[in-house]
C-alpha cells in the first residue's frame, strides 16, 4: 500500500528551497537525507529542539551526586580513616572525582539516548534508498501514508521542485 516517493538534489540550497516549497503545498515530508547537517533544514522541517541536553543534565546531576555522596559516605561512615590529619569530610578533595563522574555520566547517558532515540546501534541495517546520500545527494522522501495526495501527485510535486531522479518504491510491509 504505502508507496515511497523520493528524489534528490545535488545542492543543499536547492534542497532548502524545495523543502519550503513542499511545505507550502502542505505536503508532509517523511524524511530528508543529506551527507552533512544542512544549515536551516531543521527550521524548514520545523523540528522541535532536541531533548538530549536535558538527558545530559539529569544524568550529570545523578552522576555527580552519586559520586559526591559515595565519597562522603566512605570517609564519614564507611571507614572514617585519619588520613594525613585531614577532616573526614574533606570536601575540596571530593571536587575532582565528583566533577569527573558528572561529565562521564552526562556524556554517556546522552550518547546512549541518542542511539536509542535514533534507532542506531552496532549492526543496525539502514533502509538506504540511494547510496549517494552519504556522498553528495540531498534526498527528499515522501510517503503516501502520511499525505493526502496520491503517489503520482506526490511524485509530480517533488519533480516540480527540481528534484532529480524521482522514483517510487512500495513499502514491503
Amino acid at each position: 500500500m504505502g508507496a515511497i516517493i523520493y528524489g534528490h538534489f545535488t545542492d543543499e540550497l536547492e534542497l532548502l528551497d524545495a523543502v519550503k516549497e513542499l511545505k507550502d503545498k502542505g505536503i508532509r515530508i517523511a524524511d530528508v537525507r543529506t551527507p552533512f547537517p544542512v544549515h536551516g533544514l531543521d527550521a524548514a522541517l520545523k523540528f522541535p529542539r532536541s531533548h538530549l541536553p536535558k538527558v545530559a543534565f539529569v544524568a550529570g546531576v545523578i552522576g555527580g551526586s552519586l559520586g559526591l555522596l559515595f565519597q562522603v559516605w566512605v570517609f564519614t561512615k564507611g571507614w572514617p580513616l585519619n588520613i594525613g590529619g585531614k577532616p573526614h569530610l574533606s570536601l575540596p578533595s571530593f571536587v575532582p572525582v565528583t566533577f569527573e563522574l558528572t561529565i562521564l555520566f552526562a556524556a554517556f547517558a546522552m550518547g546512549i539516548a541518542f542511539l536509542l532515540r535514533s534507532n542506531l546501534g552496532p549492526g543496525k541495517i539502514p533502509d538506504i534508498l540511494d547510496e549517494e546520500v552519504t556522498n553528495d545527494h540531498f534526498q527528499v522522501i515522501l510517503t503516501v501514508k502520511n499525505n493526502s495526495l496520491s503517489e503520482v501527485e506526490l511524485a509530480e510535486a517533488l519533480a516540480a521542485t527540481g528534484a532529480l531522479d524521482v522514483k517510487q518504491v512500495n513499502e514491503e510491509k
Partner: protein
Amino acid sequence: MKKQNIPEPVPFKFGKKLKTYLGIAAGVGLLALLIAVFLQQLPSERIWANLWMNALMFLFLGLGALFFWTVNTLGESTWQINIQRIMESMGLTIPFAVILFIVAFPGLKDLFEWTHTEHLDKILQKKEAYLNFPFWLFRFAVYFGLWSFFAFYLRKISVKNDFEPYEKFLARLRATSGWFMVIFAITSSMAAWDWLMSIDAHWFSTLYGWYIFSGMFVSAVAVIILITIAFRHFGILPNVNAEHLHDLGKYLFGFSIFWAYLWISQYLLIWYSNIPEETVYYVERVNNFGTIFYVNVITNFLFPFLALMTRGAKRQQLYLAIVAVIVLMGHYLDLYLAIMPGAVGRENASIGLLEIGLPFFYLAAFLTLFFIFFEKAKPVPENHPYFIESSDYENI
C-alpha cells in the same frame, strides 16, 4: 545578508536626563563617603580601603573590556563587532582610573604593611627589592602608561576605519592587539601582585594574578552585557539580537566557571598542603569573613552556573541583565574579600553604608566617561570587514 539590509544604528546622544541620573548617583556616593568620614567617623583604613577597592573596580571594567576586545580581534571572531564600540569606550576610561588611585594614595600606609620600612620583619626585608615605594610607583606609572596608550591607539585605528574603509586597518588592529596581549599578560599579573596581593605582604600565590584577572574579566563582561541590553532596549544598537546576547551570556557563564576553576585550584592546593605560610590567607578569610567567603563562591559560581545553563536563559534580555547585575555585585564582594581582611582586619571591616553607597559614585563616574567616549564615534564600526558577519550568524 547584504550590508544594505542591516538597520542603521541611531547615533547616541548623552542627554540631560541621563546626566541628571548620573549626577544623583554620584551624589549618593559622595554623601555616603562624607557620612562615613564625618558622621560615622569610620577608621581611616576602612575609608582608604574602600577608595582603593572602588578605584580597582573602576579600572577592572575598562581593562577587562579592552582585553575582551583585543582577544576577540586576535581570534578573528566576528560576533562582537556590533558591540565593539562599547568595549572601546569602556577601555578609554582606563587613564582616568589613575586619578581615582591617586586619591587613595594618602592611605597607602594604612593599606600596605610593607610601606612601613622602619619595621619590616625578616621576610619583608627579603622582599624589599621588589616591595618598595619608589619601584612600586614606577611600576604603577608603567602599567597605566602602557594600558592607556593601547586603549587610545586601538581606538584610534578603529575609528579611522570608519572614514577610510581599508583592509589594512584590520591587520594593524590585530598586530596592536597582539602587542597589547603580551603586555597585558605580564602587567595584569604584576598589577594584581602590587595592588592586591601585597596587602597580605607575607602571603604569596603564583596563581593570584590570573585569579584576579578572571574576576576582572567577568566583571567587565557583566557590564558589557548590561550596557548592550540597555542600548538594544533604547534602539541605539538595533543590530544586536538574541544571538549576541547568547554569546555574551556564554562568556559570562563560561568565565564564571573559569573563575571558579581558578578559585578552587588556588584554594584546594593551599587547603591540601596546609602550609602555614600559605594558609594564613585563607584562615583569616574563612574564620573572620566566613559568610562573605561562602557567599562569594555562591554568587560568582553556583548562581551564574545554574542560572545561565540553558540556552533560553542566555537569550532572554531581562533575565540576563539580572544575572549580570548579581554577578557584578559578586565580584565586588570578591574584591572586598581580597582587600579588607588584610587592609582593615576583622575588627573594623564590615559592609555598611560606605561599602554600599560609595560604588555609586564610581559607577556614575565610569558611566559618564563611557557615555562621553561612546558619543564621540559611530555606535558600530560599520566598515569593519567582519561587520556583516557579525550581524548575520546563528548559535547552534
